[in-house]
């Protein structure tokens, strides 16, 4: 990583290679990039709702990173679990959707065609349905509408 104008600062100079303290339980990091995460965000949001809300309430108590490590591990494990479930059940649809998001500047509105098959596959295999909170209830949600020309 080289920021423009900072070529004399090598990115690796800022990396601290020290491993985390050994008394902490090991947890894998999610490791997914932006587009797959964005594609899976609504699934993560609804399937990990309890863990996420618990974590954010904990963060509200104290912003110290040490305070919420336990809740944070649960959040990360749940996100990894959801991503693995998606990969196991809807691998191709998921891939088509996040690659579309990658191509289309991560705009959901331009990836409705792959999203439709992706959501159908998730509904069939996991029984999950996308729901946007606080959307108007008297009309279909934005991902179920026909986009304006």
């Amino acid at each position, binding site marked *: 990583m080289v920021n423009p104008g900072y070529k*004399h*600062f*090598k990115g*690796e*100079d*800022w*990396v*601290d290679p*020290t*491993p*985390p*303290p050994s008394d902490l339980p090991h*947890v894998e*990091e*999610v490791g997914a990039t932006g587009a797959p*995460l*964005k594609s899976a*965000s*609504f699934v*993560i*949001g*609804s399937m*990990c709702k309890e*863990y*996420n809300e618990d*974590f*954010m309430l904990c*963060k509200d108590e*104290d*912003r*110290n*990173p*040490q*305070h*919420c*490590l336990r*809740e*944070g*591990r649960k*959040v*990360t494990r749940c*996100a990894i679990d959801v991503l693995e479930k998606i990969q196991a059940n809807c691998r191709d649809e998921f891939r088509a959707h996040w690659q579309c998001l990658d191509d289309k500047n991560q*705009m*959901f*509105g331009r990836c409705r065609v792959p999203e439709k098959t992706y959501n159908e596959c998730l509904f069939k295999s996991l029984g999950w349905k996308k729901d*946007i*909170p*606080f*959307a*108007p209830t008297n009309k279909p*949600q*934005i*991902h179920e*509408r026909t*986009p*304006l020309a």
Partner: protein
Amino acid sequence: MSNGTTQASQDMPPSGGFKPFRYERRLPKRGPSGVGMFAICGSIMAYGWYRVYLGLDERRELEREKIWSRIYLTPMLIAEADRDEYRRRCAAVDREREIMKDIPGWIPGEGVYHGKRYAPDTIANVPLHQQPGFKKE
């Protein structure tokens, strides 16, 4: 010159009176009436505003979708960043303990503020041998 010998004569209207005089403009009627044109323009504008409303509605819902996808990812990203920050903080405190071990009464990792509230480091605390400009002797 009037000397009484000639009889003054006065112009009189023709017998039966003058024909009615046409003083109004009489243009042929062409095209729709004013009210009709007003209604046509109004309906075109109403349709246009309806399309504007649809576009605004779609844009608002797209924005809502984007914001909620980000909100749903926030806890996961914060958890990951917190673990990294905690790891770096522990390493920095260990380094500080090693450097200041000869100073009696020094508390490694003590904050510069009096309060209990957490304040993140304002500069990245990285190992000295990795810091830019560091020269080995």
